[in-house]
């Protein structure tokens, strides 16, 4: 008998924990609107799905901050056609199993019109099938895996993919860092690190850059001495770290300690301040990284956004905050042009996708802080260049020579 009771209890808990007369149905809802029914009816709700906890939580944090800033700016400017924008933050912890549940929760929410997210490519892929079936736009500000957008017409992203990034890094090393002839690749053994490595190696072989070693590490590795020893024995001119900031910081630190003098080169996964604090400024000095965006001095729009960001959050924005800021902006623009209060939820969701899919030429593109965004037939952004940053005096600064014309 007890089992019946507990079973019913569980079912009841699942059911009724959701059924409380409150408008906040999801994680960390940040409602700027009051409980006034009139106003609540006027809100437009979108979701931001990001790894707020787990191994890539630092990225999730900046994504949240970027989205909050854009939301605040939109709402202070009077909202979208007079309606306030509400953002629901959902934590996928960077895990696929969580991402599918988050996706299902979002797809079933009768108020959410579009999703900005997910960050990790594997999470974007996991949620994809559900968003696709539910007919809701999944707009990733961070997934760089090559195939992400090909598989669903509901998935978009506003940055380049790893196929481009890997190729770009190989070309940059070949064209700009000409003294480098041999490269060792040290990659994170997951979809991001390994996928990027494959793209890099393919291009390097094509243009005659010698790959002398290719070693893997796992997410929970913190001691890289063994791999570094075997890399060092091959005496590479440069070491390309295809992975994320936390491990990359330790790699650079431990490599310098072990007497490795090679040039370090990293990808956008390293683009975070934590890389510098972990590696120590002296060890990190001179490391090159590639990133989808830099806050250039001569771009007034980016400068203004960075200033507002610092004012609102007390920290400088990074690439991911800027990309999320733009993604929320694009969704808001789509809502402004297409939202029809009389129409069904599904129609409104579909209208957003139609609007985004129609942005397929530079003329129709959305001009945000990260540059012009428009999509190809897959939903990929193909025009955005990769920028190169270098660590100088303990800070990331734009490298002197950029290769912006590479497509």
């Amino acid at each position: 008998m007890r089992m019946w009771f507990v079973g019913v209890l569980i079912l009841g808990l699942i059911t009724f924990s959701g059924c409380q007369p409150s408008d906040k149905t999801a994680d960390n809802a940040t409602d700027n609107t009051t409980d006034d029914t009139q106003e609540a009816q006027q809100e437009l709700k979108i979701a931001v799905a990001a790894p707020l906890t787990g191994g890539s939580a630092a990225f999730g944090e900046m994504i949240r901050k970027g989205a909050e800033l854009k939301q605040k700016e939109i709402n202070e400017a009077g909202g979208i056609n007079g309606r306030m924008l509400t953002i629901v933050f959902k934590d996928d912890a960077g895990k696929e199993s969580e991402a599918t549940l988050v996706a299902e929760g979002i797809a079933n929410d009768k108020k959410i019109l579009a999703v900005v997210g997910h960050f990790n490519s594997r999470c974007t892929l996991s949620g994809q099938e559900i968003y696709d079936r539910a007919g809701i736009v999944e707009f990733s500000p961070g997934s760089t895996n090559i195939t992400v957008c090909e598989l669903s017409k509901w998935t978009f992203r506003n940055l380049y993919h790893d196929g481009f990034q890997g190729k770009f890094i190989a070309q940059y090393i070949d064209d700009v860092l000409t003294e480098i002839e041999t490269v060792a690749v040290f990659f994170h053994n997951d979809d991001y690190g390994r996928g990027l490595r494959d793209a890099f190696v393919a291009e390097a072989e094509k243009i005659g850059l010698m790959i002398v070693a290719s070693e893997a590490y796992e997410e929970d590795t913190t001691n890289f001495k063994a791999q570094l020893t075997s890399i060092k024995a091959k005496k590479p001119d440069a070491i390309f770290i295809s992975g994320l900031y936390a491990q990359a910081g330790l790699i650079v630190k431990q490599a310098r300690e072990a007497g490795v003098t090679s040039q370090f080169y990293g990808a956008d996964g390293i683009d975070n301040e934590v890389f510098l604090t972990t590696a120590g400024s002296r060890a990190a000095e001179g490391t090159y990284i590639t990133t989808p965006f830099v806050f250039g001095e001569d771009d007034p729009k980016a400068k203004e956004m960075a200033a507002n960001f610092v004012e609102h959050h007390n920290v400088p924005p990074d690439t991911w905050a800027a990309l999320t800021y733009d993604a929320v902006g694009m969704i808001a623009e789509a809502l402004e042009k297409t939202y029809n209060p009389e129409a069904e939820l599904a129609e409104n969701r579909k209208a957003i996708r139609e609007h985004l899919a129609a942005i397929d030429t530079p003329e129709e593109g959305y001009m945000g802080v990260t540059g012009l965004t428009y999509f190809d037939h897959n939903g990929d952004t193909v025009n955005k260049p990769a920028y190169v940053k270098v660590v100088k005096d303990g800070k990331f600064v734009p490298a002197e020579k950029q290769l912006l014309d590479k497509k």
Partner: protein
Amino acid sequence: MKDKLTPRNIILCIAICSLPWFLIGIDEISSLLDQYRINFGWPGAGYILRIIVRACLYMLLAIGLNVVCGFTGLLDLGYVAFYLIGGYTAGILMSLLDVHYLIALPLAVVHATAWGLVRGIPTLRLTGDYFAIVTFGFAELFFRIVKNETWLTGGVPNGQLRGVPAPTIPFTSISFDLNWHHYYHIIILLALVVFVTYRLQNSRVGRAWVAIREDEQAAESMGINVGRYKSLAFAVSAAIGGIGGAFLAQFQVSFSAQFFEFWESIFILCMVVLGGMGSIRGAMLGAAILGSLGEILRVALSKYPEIAGSRMLLFGLILVLLMRFRPAGLMYKKT
């Protein structure tokens, strides 16, 4: 769950079978009320069904682990290996080789069973925690293999399989990809597994397992072929893991090695112990609680954003408290 068709069991059957429609009904009511601007904050039938399906999948796995841990009394820390083998066998067959689910599922089960037997041979003479750590080592090896051998998964890194097709009814194009499809799918598999293990438990085999659990030497001297019965337990347990894996492959559509980390084995073990070792109902109950607790806490804590981050902390504490007050498991019966 007696064998008889008591009114209670009939009601239970009807309740289980009509659950998706009940939930979809609430969905309708909720959207109806929505028109009158009454918001219940109903999270949606699809979401709840998905949580239930996931909990049912864990029930299946917990029953499978229970065969080795509960019936035979060996601590298995590497159960996830069979889940992994089932998942990748079915996933690779379906997504890369276009094999139909109805063929891929039995193949996955056979493959997992074979590995269960292979793992059994060297570990037969190990006892207690040495058995545990060797099973853990095996699982870890499989995990590393799918992570590193990308040729297995069609060149995609991290053992990632994408676009596993939904099962279709043979000779038609009707595919099973909606949440209520998954629900009936897992219920059928679960019923099958419960039936088989229940019959095994109450047969000569089950009694032999209990004898081995209670005292291996005594069992042997009573004429029980310990090696054979242990191998049988490994095979049954691995087969159930294979079923779970095959289901996961088509349920998740896109999955990677991340699903089969060591933590998953521990998680399933917690369900078995929480419910009460050796009890099928206990394993199911433990899986129902732990498999849905994470999401229950997510929804319940969403109203209090300041403590929403402590979801897993509460999870751990609940585990400790349950063990503190029901040390022998929730469904423990003294035998």
